[in-house]
């Protein structure tokens, strides 16, 4: 019976020890913002998938271009009032990037760079935090940029490996693109219909 008593003490229950009303610091707030917002996360996944479908040299460009564009956009979005068109561009990016992944065509370097930078900039603007300044803003912007770098690097590397090493890799990436494009078409229509 004493053993049973000790066993009863081992039954775990959730600690609920984290404070939900406090923040984890501006850097982590910046990192978590795009990762926990599907409207940013899914198009960023699409950027990684699209990059994975390109030649290695071009795919590597995205590792630099996308985070830099996000950095510039987030900084500008935090300093300026974000225009309404930014939301529409960000919502369109699901459809545009998804369709580009479905087509799986090698893009000319200038077109690919332009697509990556425009979407990086607009999503950066969408991630702007106007209530921050000084070091807090710097940490937040760096957090968003780090998330952009990590996500796109992981996705680009994974999808490129899949495409080059597996016979079914391109098919799987294209199917993923069709899912993203489908979600994009539905969400863009819904947003435009709901707009006043």
């Amino acid at each position: 019976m004493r053993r049973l008593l000790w066993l009863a003490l081992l039954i775990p229950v959730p600690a609920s020890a984290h404070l939900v009303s406090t923040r984890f610091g501006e850097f982590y707030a910046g990192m978590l913002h795009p990762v926990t917002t599907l409207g940013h996360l899914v198009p960023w996944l699409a950027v990684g998938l699209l990059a994975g479908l390109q030649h290695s040299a071009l795919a590597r460009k995205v590792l630099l271009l996308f985070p830099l564009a996000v950095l510039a956009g987030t900084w500008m979005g935090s300093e300026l009032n974000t225009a309404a068109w930014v939301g529409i561009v960000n919502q369109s990016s699901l459809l545009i990037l998804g369709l580009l992944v479905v087509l799986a065509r090698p893009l000319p370097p200038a077109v690919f760079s332009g697509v990556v930078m425009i979407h990086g900039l607009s999503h950066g603007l969408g991630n702007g935090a106007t209530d921050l300044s000084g070091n807090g803003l710097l940490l937040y912007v760096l957090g968003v940029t780090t998330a952009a770098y990590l996500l796109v690097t992981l996705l680009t590397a994974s999808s490129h490996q899949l495409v080059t090493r597996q016979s079914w890799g391109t098919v799987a990436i294209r199917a993923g693109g069709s899912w993203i494009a489908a979600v994009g078409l539905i969400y863009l229509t819904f947003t435009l219909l709901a707009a006043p």
Partner: protein
Amino acid sequence: MNKPTALQPATLLTFLLLTLCAGQAQAHAETGVAGGLISGFLHPLLGLDHLVAMVAVGLWGAQLQKPAIWLLPITFPLLMAMGAVLGLFGVPVPGIEVGIALSALILGLMVLFSVRPPLVVAAVIVGFFAIFHGHAHGTELPDAANPLAYGVGFVVSTGLLHLAGIVLGVLTLWPAGVRAVKGLGGCITALGVYFSVASFGWL
């Protein structure tokens, strides 16, 4: 007859301690992103008529092999999105439930008899029925806790059901597997007959 013995103090204490190990109530309805994602993801899974039709698309694609094996599961979500757009605009598509039920019946028959039409015809058949499924999802989207998450949920769920069909379709690599896949087609056809009869209100 033995007399019932009194509980030992240690036993009593154990039971008392166990009553303190309270589980979570989970009594709240999910809201926000989680709510949208869960409801969207479960929509095709909990509707058996959606589920069997999606699996049938994957099975048929696997029977038809390349390029249908990837073309059909890519066609379906894109045309399903078109159907959802029609639903969002409030464009009435006649006989939604009948269309969904017939999709299970027709696609089940395709798998059962391993029908091999030209690729374009297969894509048209799959795309046509995808519109009915999409319309049903689209009309429910504005009421979702989070419309984007709902859309992501039901598209991913649909895609995974296609994938399940394709994985089951790998069985066609073996002679016995060919018969097994046709048997699955027969099951889907039988369910399609039931759904069709029910959708016409004859049950």
